């Protein structure tokens, strides 16, 4: 499988004070991909999407190189939603399909609820954003690498490729720094409970919506898929067997195929 070449661009947003890096690759209809709490990685999943579409993958504020303090400029959830509206305008993408994974899914759902007409189609891959007292989402920010690996991954072999180990401070200091800070930035909007009231706004989402979930997701268990499905009028669920929360790494082909089939060409 040959990798799709992607390029980088930098946007200038929020009165030129936030300058996120955006990875862009592929050709065809525009797809905006919002990454999860661990940061952006152009991997097999995005490669597969870029074979069919133009993928725009912006980095979350604070996680682009040299931008660590940018996160301080967004005070609350309202700021963040307005920021993403500005980002989509600035990308110059009309009628975009939004694809969001995990924390990125929580943001994508919120954008689609805040401004339903701005989103053509919506794909939520194991999104955060809802809360059930009977199935609390584990507090990943307070976990060590081993514990995180346990709740994020179903496949331990895949986990080993993506998770940092205790000696990463010595072997991969850059990766450790980037991942830690990405978690810190996402933590501003997900700690201690990743719920900012989306449940009350789900009804506003009018875009056709695909939910993609691993059947072994231990972070956001599939029971949450039912809540999203019943809350979003025009939605359907694709449940992928043998995948955990990191479904886009563990079952990237299956996940990408489901997304491509849904978006069409």
């Amino acid at each position, binding site marked *: 499988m040959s990798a799709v070449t992607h390029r980088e661009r930098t946007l200038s947003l929020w009165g030129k004070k936030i300058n996120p890096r955006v990875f862009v690759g592929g050709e065809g209809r525009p797809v905006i991909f919002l990454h999860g709490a661990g940061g952006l990685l152009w991997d097999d999943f995005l490669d597969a999407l870029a074979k069919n579409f133009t993928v725009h993958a912006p980095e979350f504020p604070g996680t682009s190189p040299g931008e660590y*303090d940018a996160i301080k400029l967004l005070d609350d959830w309202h700021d963040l939603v307005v920021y993403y509206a500005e980002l989509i305008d600035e990308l110059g993408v009309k009628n975009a399909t939004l694809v969001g994974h995990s924390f990125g899914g929580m943001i994508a759902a919120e954008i689609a609820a805040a401004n339903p007409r701005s989103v053509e189609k919506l794909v939520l891959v194991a999104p955060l954003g809802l809360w059930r007292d009977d199935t609390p989402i584990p507090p990943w920010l307070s976990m060590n690498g081993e514990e995180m690996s346990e709740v994020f991954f179903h496949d331990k072999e895949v986990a080993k490729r993506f998770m940092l180990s205790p000696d990463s401070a010595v072997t991969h200091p850059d990766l450790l*720094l980037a991942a830690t800070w990405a978690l*810190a930035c996402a933590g501003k909007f997900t*700690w201690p409970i990743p719920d900012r009231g989306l449940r009350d706004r789900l009804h506003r989402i009018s875009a056709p919506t695909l939910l993609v979930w691993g059947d072994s997701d231990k972070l956001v268990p599939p029971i949450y898929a039912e809540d999203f499905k019943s809350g979003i009028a025009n939605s359907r669920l694709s449940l992928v067997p043998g995948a955990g929360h990191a479904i886009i790494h563990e079952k990237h082909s299956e996940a990408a195929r489901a997304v491509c089939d849904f978006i069409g060409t």
Partner: protein
Amino acid sequence: MKVSFFGVMPHRELPDDFERRYKSVWVDPPFTELADPVRVGQYYNWTLDEYVHAAKAGFDGVCLNEHHQNAYGFMPGPTLMASALARETNHLNTAIVMLGSTLTTNFPLRIAEEYAMIDAISGGRIVAGMPPGSSMDANQAYGVPPIETRERSAEAHDLILRAWESKKPFAFNGKYTKLPKVNIWPRPIQKKPPVWIPGAGSASTWEYVARNKHCYCFVSFFGRKMAQNVLDGYWAFNDQYGLDRNPYRAGFNQVCVVGETDESCERENAKHIEYFYKRSLHVPEHYWALPGYQDYPSLEKTVRSGVLAKMTEKLAQFKTYKYKDFVNDEMIIAGGPETVRDRLIDLSKRLRVGNLMLVMQLGSMPPELTKKSIDIFTSKVLPQLRGVWGDEWENHWWPERCRDKPAVKSVERANA
């Protein structure tokens, strides 16, 4: 030199297999499995007794701090303890060193009010420490997003100082606290209560301390060796900032126990020291700083300088340490009066610290042994520490009425 007694109000009777059965002493251990409310009432009273004993024996100050959801030291309301101590020490000249109410886990105005109350009750003896709160406390127990810890602390600090100093009610439009009319009653007796800021070596904290003219405290249980870099960094920073080298600009926290001799000290205290480091400090390494608790430059420094790797190694080492290893590694200062005196003088000079805090009640240590250690220390060691810094420097970070013994005013007169 000013020397204060520090007790942390620990669980003193954790089971022998505690660290094998439980993930952490902080955040996670279930109270109902491990503690009995009646017995815990006894711990609080023992702790108060030890504090009062330390004050009467001649310590310059008593230090209190705030921690939540743990068996290491559970004083969730340090001002409750301080209030009782302020009252009980009114005939003495002991500073009430709050190190203190944590800025992120309290409504800031409440801290301003309670500190003012303690200053009022004590006749102007409070040291107003303003810690952000540990990551376990602020982020886990109280749910503050780690990345907001510093910003919230700085804002609370500004509000508290303004609330004390403002002559007229004012509106406060902070990011985290918004108030139409700030007009607290009471106000502290001290015009400017001394402010101590605990830190862990972040350059941003040094800058903040320097800018506000506060005292910087390094609160650690790992002794001089681990502190040397931090304090050296602090003094180098101050030099660059253009501040003098007044040793009272710095505070340090040292674990210390004293016996009649080195041998008897070891015999009596070894198991309590080991209990403290193995059981009371049984905290998973990553709990000390959830992602975002350190700002980015500090995180980068920790990762790239190798401090993170060193800490990991050190924390693993402690688990196999015996009393003698803790002594030899300078993590604790323990022994007979001469040993303790020499080590404390050496430590103070090498770190350049004028405000010394000694943790003298640790983990399972019973009240009688704690008091014995206090008595030997105050009679045989403390008098020889007082003059370490001569009379070259004034301790601006100590309550004014406690600075010189002869200047004691009675509370009645202070309040008249």
